[in-house]
C-alpha cells in the first residue's frame, strides 16, 4: 500500500480512538473536569503523566538535539534535566499538594499565603509558562501533518485543534487522562520500534540501550568508538566528550531543567487525580518509568541514526556519495527543506564536514534524525506511518494537558477564586468549558501566527516555572514560617532576575534588536547561557523570600495548621472543592 494512504489510515484510526474515548469519558462535575474525579489509578496516572510530559520536542526533536546540535555528550542536559525533576516532584511537591486536595496550583499558593495577590501572581506565571509551551505543540501538530500527510500547515493545525477541542472541552481532565493513556501507547510504540530495528541492524542487539554500548556487526568496533572516529575525521567534536559550553554551564543548565520540570503546573496537576497521598508518590515513580523508556532510547537513536547518516553520505573515508545517486529518503526530505545540499566545489559529490567553507550539507535539521530514521534504516512503510501518528500523539497529549492547566486557572482561580466567588458548581463547569474553548482558540491563533519569540520560549517556560512556582510551593510546604510578603517578594525577584537575563541576551519580549547584550558566550554571566538561568532565578527567589520573611510577621496560626495538615497523609479525603 502507498505510504501516504497507510499514513492516513493509521493517523485516522488513532484520531477515531481519541474521539471515542472523549465521548465515553464526558465530565459531569467540576471535580471530574479539573481532577478526573480524583480516582485515577497510580499506574494509569503515571502513563498519562508521561504522555502529558513528553511533547513534540521530546518525540521529534530531542534525539536530533543530542545527535547534532549538542554533539552527543552535551545533550545529556536534556536527558538528565527532564527526568531528574520527577525526583523533586515525588519527594518535595506531589504528595503534599495531593493531600491539600484542591484543584489548581495557584489555589494552593493563594490559600497557603492567605493572599489573592499571591494567587494572581501564580496565575500569571502559570499562564505565561503554559501559553508559550502550547505554541510549540501547535506548531508540532501543523508540522507533523504537513510533512507526513502532505497537507498544508494550516489544514493540519485545524485538524489537530478540532480533535483537542472535542475531547478537552467535553471531557476536561477526565477525557484528557484517558486519551493521554492511549496516546502514550501510540507514541511509545512509534518511538521504540524504529529504534529496535536500527539497533538490530547495526549491532544485532534488539535493545537500543544495550546496542549503543555494543560492537558493530560490520567491523566489530564499538558503536561509540566508531562514532567518535567518524565525526572527528570530519572535524566535528568528539561525540562522547564534547560538552555544551563550560562544565558550569552544563551543571546549571541541568539543574534549571530539573527544577523547571518539577514546577510546571500541567505536570503537577496530574498528581491531583490519584486517590491518595501514597498513590501520588508511587504514581511519580510510574510516570518516570514510562518516561525513561523513551528517554533511555533517545541517546541510542541519536548515536545510531547519526552514524547511519554519516555512513550513507561517506561510505568509506574519502569516498563520498554522488548527489545523483542519493537515496529516495534524501530526495523526500530535501523537498521539506530539512535537508539542503549545495555543490560548492562542483564535483557532484556530497562532502559533509564541520568546516563551514567546504561543508556541502548546508542544512541538516535536528528533527530529521527521528523523522527520517525509519527511511534511512530502510524500514517498512507501516513503521513510517506509525512515527507520524506517534509525533501527533505526543503533541496532542501535551497540548491538552497545558490547555487544562490554563483554562482551570482562568475558571477556577480567576473567576471563582477572585471575581465571582458565589458562582454555582454548574455555572463553574460551564465557565470552565468556555475557558477551555477560548484557550484552544487562542492556542490555535498563536499556532497560525507564531510570534517572533516562539523559538526562544522554552527558556521562558522552564525559567518561570523554576524561578517562581517551584520555590513558592516548596517553601510553602517545608518552611512553616514563610509568609505572604516573603513569598511574593521571592516570586517577583526570581521572575525579575530570570526575565532580565533572558531579555538582555535575547531581546525584550524576544525582539532581537532590543537585546542590549549580544547573545554570545563572552557576554554570559560566568558563561551560563540564557536557557540555563532558571536555577539562578530560583536561588534568588529563595534568598529574597527568606530574608523578607524574617523581617515580617509570622503567618497566622490557621496557616501553620494548614502546613501541618498537608505534611501528613492523616485524615485525607479525595480532592474537594471549597
Amino acid at each position, binding site marked *: 500500500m502507498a505510504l501516504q494512504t497507510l499514513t492516513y489510515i493509521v493517523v485516522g484510526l488513532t484520531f477515531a480512538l481519541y474521539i471515542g474515548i472523549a465521548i465515553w469519558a464526558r465530565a459531569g462535575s467540576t471535580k471530574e473536569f479539573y481532577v478526573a474525579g480524583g480516582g485515577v489509578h497510580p499506574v494509569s496516572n503515571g502513563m498519562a503523566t508521561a504522555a502529558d510530559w513528553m511533547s513534540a520536542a521530546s518525540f521529534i526533536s530531542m534525539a536530533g538535539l543530542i545527535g547534532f546540535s549538542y554533539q552527543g555528550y552535551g545533550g*545529556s542536559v536534556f536527558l538528565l534535566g527532564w527526568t531528574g525533576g520527577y525526583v523533586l516532584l515525588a519527594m518535595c511537591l506531589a504528595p503534599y499538594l495531593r493531600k491539600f486536595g484542591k484543584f489548581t496550583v495557584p489555589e494552593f499558593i493563594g490559600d497557603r499565603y492567605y493572599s489573592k495577590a499571591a494567587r494572581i501572581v501564580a496565575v500569571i506565571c502559570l499562564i505565561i509558562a503554559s501559553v508559550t509551551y502550547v505554541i510549540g505543540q501547535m506548531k508540532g501538530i501543523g508540522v507533523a501533518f504537513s510533512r507526513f500527510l502532505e497537507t498544508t500547515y494550516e489544514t493540519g493545525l485545524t485538524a489537530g485543534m478540532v480533535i483537542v477541542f472535542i475531547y478537552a472541552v467535553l471531557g476536561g481532565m477526565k477525557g484528557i487522562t484517558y486519551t493521554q493513556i492511549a496516546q502514550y501507547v501510540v507514541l511509545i510504540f512509534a518511538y521504540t520500534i524504529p529504534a529496535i530495528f536500527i539497533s538490530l541492524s547495526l549491532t544485532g542487539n534488539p535493545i537500543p540501550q544495550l546496542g549503543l*554500548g555494543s560492537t558493530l556487526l560490520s567491523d566489530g568496533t564499538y558503536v561509540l568508538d566508531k562514532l567518535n572516529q567518524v565525526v572527528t575525521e570530519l572535524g566535528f567534536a568528539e561525540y562522547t566528550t564534547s560538552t555544551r559550553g563550560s562544565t558550569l554551564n552544563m551543571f546549571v543548565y541541568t539543574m534549571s531543567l530539573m527544577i523547571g520540570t518539577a514546577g510546571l503546573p500541567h505536570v503537577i496537576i496530574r498528581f491531583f487525580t490519584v486517590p491518595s497521598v501514597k498513590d501520588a508518590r508511587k504514581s511519580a515513580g510510574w510516570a518516570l518509568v514510562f518516561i525513561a523508556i523513551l528517554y533511555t532510547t533517545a541517546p541510542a537513536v541519536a548515536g545510531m541514526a547519526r552514524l547511519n547518516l554519516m555512513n550513507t553520505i561517506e561510505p568509506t573515508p574519502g569516498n563520498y556519495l554522488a548527489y545523483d545517486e542519493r537515496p529516495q529518503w534524501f530526495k523526500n526530505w530535501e523537498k521539506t527543506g530539512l535537508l539542503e545540499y549545495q555543490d560548492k566545489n562542483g564535483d557532484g559529490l556530497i562532502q559533509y564536514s564541520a568546516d563551514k567553507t567546504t561543508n556541502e550539507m548546508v542544512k541538516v535539521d535536528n528533527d530529521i534524525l527521528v523523522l527520517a530514521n525509519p527511511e534511512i534504516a530502510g524500514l517498512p512503510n507501516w513503521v513510517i506511518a506509525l512515527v507520524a501518528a506517534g509525533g501527533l500523539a505526543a503533541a496532542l497529549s501535551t497540548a491538552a494537558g497545558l490547555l487544562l492547566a490554563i483554562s482551570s486557572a482562568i475558571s477556577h482561580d480567576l473567576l471563582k477564586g477572585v471575581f465571582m466567588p458565589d458562582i454555582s458548581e454548574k455555572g463553574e463547569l460551564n465557565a470552565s468549558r468556555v475557558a477551555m474553548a477560548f484557550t484552544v482558540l487562542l492556542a490555535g491563533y498563536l499556532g497560525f501566527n507564531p510570534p517572533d519569540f516562539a523559538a526562544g520560549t522554552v527558556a521562558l517556560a522552564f525559567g518561570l516555572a523554576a524561578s517562581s512556582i517551584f520555590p513558592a510551593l516548596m517553601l510553602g510546604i517545608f518552611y512553616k514560617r514563610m509568609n505572604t510578603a516573603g513569598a511574593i517578594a521571592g516570586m517577583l525577584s526570581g521572575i525579575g532576575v530570570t526575565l532580565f537575563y533572558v531579555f538582555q541576551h535575547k531581546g525584550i519580549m524576544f525582539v532581537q534588536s532590543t537585546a542590549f547584550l549580544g547573545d554570545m558566550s563572552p557576554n554570559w554571566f560566568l558563561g551560563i547561557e540564557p536557557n540555563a538561568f532558571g536555577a539562578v532565578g530560583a536561588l534568588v527567589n529563595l534568598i529574597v523570600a527568606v530574608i523578607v520573611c524574617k523581617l515580617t510577621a509570622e503567618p497566622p496560626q490557621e496557616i501553620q495548621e494548614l502546613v501541618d495538615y498537608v505534611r501528613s497523609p492523616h485524615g485525607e479525603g479525595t480532592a474537594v472543592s471549597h
Partner: protein
Amino acid sequence: MKDKAEAYWKANVSLILKLLAIWFVVPFLGGIVFVDALNQISLGGYPLGFWIAQQGSIYMFVVLIFYYAKKMSDLDDEFAVGGE
C-alpha cells in the same frame, strides 16, 4: 499527637535529604563534574561517565522514587498517619 506528627515529619525530611544527596551526587558529580575521570573506565562500549549522564542516572532516578514511596509507606504505618 503533635509530637508524633513532628517526629513523622522529621523522619520524612531526613529521608528526603539522604535521597536527594544521591540524586545530586550521581548525575551532577558523576555525570558532569568528574565525567572525564570516569570516562577512563569502560562499561562495555560505553565510557562510564558518558553512560552515567545518558543512561545510568535515569535508572537511578526511578529507583530513588520507588524507594522513597516504599519507605514513606512504612513510615505512614509506623506513625499510623496513613490515609482513611
